[in-house]
């Protein structure tokens, strides 16, 4: 875990004091709402449909057990006993009171957390592979570079008022679990022919009303140049990005309009100008940061490997859970555990304060006190001994955290939708709950296999529907909610934008339509063929036929 240095601590504490004074002045009338709004947004405090919402940054999705306990405490003291983990690895509290916000920020600062740059046209929290540091085929831990980006981008004076918000994601493994190709910048650690480590730099991905897959503008960037190259990209965007139309202000539009070759030439020219300006990451600094992400003190002694195998044989529910939730660890005898926040009929990504405390306790007991948040709104315990998995499962199950549906149709991403969000035009959570309930039978889910279903309550696509194997965009038509289904999207290393399959479905037909799609897949799949692979082989026609009776 990275620990704040004195600059971080001073900066965050000063920000708390500044915001406390700003809230005082707002409540006293010294600041108008127009004056105050940008100040609160700089601190992640939105005014949503029902209340203020505070979005707290979780840098690259990594938390300590103590930080999770603080989030639980905030949920209890200042909210309604729960928090909502987001598709950007952050957490949101939906029922914040303005007068409490400075105290919440002070509580966060006490555990080295904040809400800076979780709103506004700035560089937002950099996200990362939730299996960072433990994936078997990883080149290097991406969080080292995320941390360097965090330090560079925090309160960067030149990039505080960009044309639009800006999101960066980093992976260190060939398998993309961070959806890097639908970010403004996606960075993938690569080795060149000589074995040196650097980055493939992808730019201009994104979702929203104009979904695009990022284009590679540099196949290999030596890692020491990371920050100067990012600075060059941001400078080109800051100057060239549109400011006259917020719907055309993201960097993806600039890359598209200018053309990737011309954009690349602009970046390279700017980089040539600034690359010697002192932004190089030197080895000493990288080593200093890397030390914070060093592997924990793993136990080389395998404890009771047979006991684990015996438990798997003896307990079918446990075995089912491991099949969905447990991934291979780079270290022999250890496992990566994904904890589903998608119980049957639940709200995707929500966790109660009790559950947060439970996770913190289990992380402390079984995973070196570390927790990751995934962009799929789940949690990860990254360092669990295989021999501890059974006890961990029992601890999770006692708190409703052992739903064995990770990566399956019940593991739905959904934005908060119009039940909470001031921007949403429709609700997204209710249909997620209905689908999750329809497919509650875990045996059926496991039989269906990997299927990524993602739901958004407006065209801003916070629910990632464009990259769902099955995507649902809920749209408003004269006050009624209709459900537009896309198929074939994916957010992995072969990222693709889903295609609309046909006319939208009414509320009483959408769940049946999803079931029709799944049944068609079951009927037509080949042995061990995943939904997305079957769809890519079959194309949309049979699905369209099943849904609409057409070819």
């Amino acid at each position, binding site marked *: 875990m990275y620990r704040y240095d004195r600059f971080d601590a001073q900066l965050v504490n000063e920000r708390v004091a500044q915001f406390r004074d700003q809230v005082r002045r707002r*409540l*006293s009338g010294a600041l108008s709402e127009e004056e105050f709004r940008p100040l609160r947004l700089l601190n992640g405090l939105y005014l949503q449909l029902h209340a203020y919402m505070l979005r707290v940054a979780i840098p690259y999705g990594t938390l300590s057990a103590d930080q999770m306990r603080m989030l639980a405490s905030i949920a209890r003291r200042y909210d*309604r006993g729960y928090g909502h983990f987001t598709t950007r690895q952050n957490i949101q509290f939906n029922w914040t*009171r303005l007068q409490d916000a400075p105290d919440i920020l002070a509580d966060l600062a006490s555990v080295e957390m904040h809400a800076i740059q979780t709103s506004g046209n700035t560089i937002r929290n950099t996200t990362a592979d939730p299996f960072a540091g433990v994936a078997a085929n990883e080149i290097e831990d991406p969080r080292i570079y995320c941390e360097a980006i965090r330090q560079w981008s925090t309160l960067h004076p030149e990039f505080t008022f960009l044309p639009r918000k800006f999101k960066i994601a980093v992976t260190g493994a060939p398998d993309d679990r961070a959806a890097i190709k639908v970010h403004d910048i996606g960075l993938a650690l690569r080795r060149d022919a000589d074995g040196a480590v650097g980055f493939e730099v992808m730019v201009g991905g994104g979702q929203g009303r104009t979904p695009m897959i990022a284009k590679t503008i540099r196949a290999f960037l030596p890692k020491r140049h990371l920050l100067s190259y990012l600075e060059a990209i941001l400078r080109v965007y800051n100057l060239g990005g549109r400011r006259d139309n917020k719907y055309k202000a993201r960097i993806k539009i600039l890359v598209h309009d200018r053309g990737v070759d011309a954009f690349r030439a602009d970046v390279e020219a700017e980089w040539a100008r600034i690359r010697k300006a002192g932004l190089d990451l030197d080895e000493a600094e990288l080593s200093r940061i890397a030390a914070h992400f060093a592997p924990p003190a793993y136990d080389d002694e395998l404890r009771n490997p047979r006991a684990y195998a015996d438990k798997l044989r003896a307990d079918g529910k446990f075995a089912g859970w491991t099949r969905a939730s447990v991934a291979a660890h780079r270290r022999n005898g250890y496992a990566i555990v994904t904890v589903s926040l998608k119980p049957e009929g639940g709200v995707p990504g929500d966790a109660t304060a009790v559950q947060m405390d439970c996770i913190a306790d289990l992380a402390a007991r079984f995973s070196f006190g570390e927790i990751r948040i995934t962009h799929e709104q789940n949690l990860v315990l990254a360092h669990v001994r295989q021999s501890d998995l059974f006890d961990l499962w029992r601890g999770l199950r006692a708190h409703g955290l052992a739903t064995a549906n990770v990566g399956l149709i019940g593991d739905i991403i959904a934005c908060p939708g*119009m039940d909470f969000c001031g921007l949403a035009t429709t609700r997204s959570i209710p249909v997620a709950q209905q689908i999750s309930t329809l497919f509650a039978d875990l045996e059926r889910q496991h039989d269906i296999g990997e299927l990524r279903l993602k739901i958004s309550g407006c065209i801003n696509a916070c629910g990632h529907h464009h990259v769902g194997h099955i995507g649902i965009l809920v749209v408003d038509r004269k006050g009624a909610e209709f459900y537009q289904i896309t198929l074939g999207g994916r957010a992995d290393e072969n990222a693709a934008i889903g295609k609309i399959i046909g006319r939208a479905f009414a509320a009483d037909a959408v769940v049946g339509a999803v079931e029709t799609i799944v049944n068609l897949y079951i009927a037509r799949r080949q042995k061990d063929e995943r939904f997305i692979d079957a769809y890519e082989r079959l194309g949309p026609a049979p699905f369209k036929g099943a849904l609409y009776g057409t070819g």
Partner: protein
Amino acid sequence: MSDQIVTANRLADGRVVFLTEDADWSARIADSRPATGAAADLLLSVAHMSAADRVVVDPYLIEVTLGSGSPWPVLHRERIRATGPTIDQSPIREVA
């Protein structure tokens, strides 16, 4: 001419409120005062004064029907604002 009421969010806690008969604010839409045309505009100007007094934020008029005896928003979004999230979240408030 359609009936309208004034709604806003309370400054201190952001909660949804409605302008009442006696120019106060209530969290209950049933307490709101409907009006039409110029009378509705007058209500909005009262609400803006309340915003200037730091009671509420961003007041605006919404269309309502009066069929059931109590004002009821025409727009789905405003119905959700009036009644809260439509989902069963089972919130647990362990400490008051």
